[in-house]
């Protein structure tokens, strides 16, 4: 390619904006994962399937003649109850158990969800048309699909709402208290079981919003949930638990890094580059921690 991106500097702008818009959406899904991981100490392998299910709800509206953008209102409501239902049937049994058990349980849920979606919605790849049009920058040289801009704006909006809710609402305070110390919260009268159910429900609702946005920006298929799980897992690992600005920065950063690695190393190495970055970050962190320990000695 002879580094096409340097021959056409306008591609740098295009790649940065594409990465930014992509990253914001991934950051939203990752935020949901960080929330329930931090509070419940559960790695939800079925995160991607929740996203896809949310997308199918928006798609269902679309086939019924409603604009799929309304999915961002309907999907989280339905998904909240799906999340609470999942907690009440399966997750509550694994909350205080070994992390491995929760991974296994959510992996089971993920397989079940895939097969159920396949049976209910069929195995065709589907999309919902938003017809939002396109925005142009720099004399038509940079194109930005309005659907992606819409997704990014909605993602930021929902993330802000959740942050404010966590900070100022009674349930938000209870969730934060449970995350800090579940036992102490219980002693002080917090119904942690209810908090866990609500947390899982809120995570599912976030996935619902993200899914509705994916229906209008990308494609839906019962078996494409895994990339969303992996991506959000990576973002959370990089950002650290309970670090919301970190999740946002790491999501956007990874999105932009991914776009640039596409131009520099080729599309086939795009995802490999992201994983390589993850390894480097983890090794660097470990290195930093070990230095700290030595200092403390």
């Amino acid at each position, binding site marked *: *390619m002879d580094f*096409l991106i340097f*021959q*056409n500097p*306008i*591609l740098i702008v*295009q*790649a940065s904006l*594409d990465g930014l818009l*992509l990253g914001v959406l991934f950051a939203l899904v990752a935020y949901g994962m960080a929330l329930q991981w931090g509070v419940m100490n559960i790695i939800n392998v079925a995160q991607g399937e929740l996203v896809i299910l949310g997308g199918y709800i928006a798609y269902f509206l679309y086939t019924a003649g409603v604009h799929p953008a309304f999915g961002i209102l309907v999907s989280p409501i339905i998904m909240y109850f799906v999340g609470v239902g999942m907690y009440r049937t399966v997750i509550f049994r694994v909350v205080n158990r070994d992390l491995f058990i929760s991974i296994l349980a959510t992996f089971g849920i993920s397989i079940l969800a895939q*097969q159920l979606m*396949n*049976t209910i919605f*069929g*195995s*065709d*790849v*589907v*999309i919902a*048309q938003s017809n939002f049009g*396109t925005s142009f920058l720099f004399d*038509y040289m940079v*194109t930005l*699909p309005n*659907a*992606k801009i819409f997704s990014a704006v909605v993602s930021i909006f929902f993330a802000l709402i959740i942050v404010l809710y966590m900070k100022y609402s009674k349930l938000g305070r209870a969730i934060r208290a449970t995350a800090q110390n579940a036992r102490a919260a219980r002693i002080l009268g917090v119904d942690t079981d209810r908090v866990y159910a609500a947390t899982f429900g809120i995570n599912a609702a976030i996935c619902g919003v993200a899914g509705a946005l994916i229906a209008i920006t*990308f*494609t839906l*298929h*019962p*078996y*494409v949930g*895994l*990339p969303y799980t*992996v991506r959000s897992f990576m973002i959370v690992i990089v950002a650290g638990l309970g670090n919301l600005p970190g999740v946002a920065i790491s999501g956007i950063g990874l999105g932009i890094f991914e*776009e640039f690695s*596409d*131009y520099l190393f*080729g*599309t*086939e190495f*795009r*995802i490999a580059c992201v994983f390589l970055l993850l390894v480097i970050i983890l090794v660097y962190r470990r290195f930093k921690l070990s230095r700290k320990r030595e200092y403390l000695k």
Partner: protein
Amino acid sequence: MKIFSKILVILSSIAFVLSLISPVTAKVVGDKIVLGAAVSLSGKYSTNGEHTKNGYNMAVQRINDMGGVKVNGKSYKFEIIYYDDESDSSRAAQLAERLIKQDGVEFMLGPYSSGLTKAIAPVTEENQIPMVEANGASRSLFTKGYKYLFAVLSAANQYLEVAIDLAVEKNGGNPINLAMAFEQDAFSQDVRIGVIEAAERTGSKITIDDKLPKELNDMAATLAKVKATKPDVLVVSGHSKGALTAIRQIAEMKVDVPMLAMTHCDASKLAKQHGKNSEYALCAAQWHKTLTYEDSFFGDGMQFDKEFTEIYGYAPPYQAAESAAALLVFKDAFERANSFERSKVRDALAKTDMQTFYGNIKFSDAGQNVAKPMVLFQVRCDGDNCENKVVAPTKWASTKLVHPIPKWSDR
């Protein structure tokens, strides 16, 4: 009570062992020829698995209604034992073993997809079971020296060769600049090999050669590169997800390219899902209803389309048509072999040279159908109603190719 359960365990073990060592000979039972097929009725290929099964069933029904298969002066009816391979290749291989070893099946029909056919082929080959398959197009199926595998469809590398030749022809016979984006899976990479060969043959230059990871559903970077390099043709192959993503993002990013050649337009219902945005996309297909091939069972493509739609309630995609053709090939081979001996049926299959509603069928030594060209259709819209119209080969073209594709600003 304990003795009773012990006896029961011993008896059931003996029955189990016997069932393993003495397979039932089920190749021909009474007046029935039993064929075996593992198709995907659940899992990610279930939609196409259903098309495959419906194609098989429709042909079985038709052949049986029209007098069946005549061997040694006696008329036999087809019957198929189906198993659900759950879209999983290891399961497909297990089921092929089961069909052969336990059900005693001696003639097989293929599953859906190249991957699953690749999993089953070694099993049928080892047991010397003739298999006529209709949904495995990967080139690697025909390079392993299989003797019992026969494919009625064109190989994957043939999918988009015609499109490149067409683009060169439209460029006054001069070489073209080519941008390619292929998913990293066996089928798409085979299609890529065919395109690269066509590019080398015509002296064309490949300016972009992106290999899309399977989990990727964003082609924005590839399309931005296409915008920057302005190639003559953009080739995309990445199953239904690739086709739908490409059209969505090409329309959103207003990527102008004189020719857009793709695969899986039919399977992804591109014209229906994307409407006018998919207009002028050029798509490779194994079959189209307007082709004028004929046979005495289904008449021509239009008639097959009509009757299939009446029975199953939807228009037949090419996966259903090629599956139906597989049964016609088996019937012809049995009658020519005039025997149910596997080696004779295998030799008769190898000598197949016939026309079906789906196209001409003649196998190379590798079992690949070499008598049927691929067809190219272009999505064309009349108002909001978009349809696939055949544009190549010219013999069957129902409309003229629109080239170059009008710019987005003029559409």
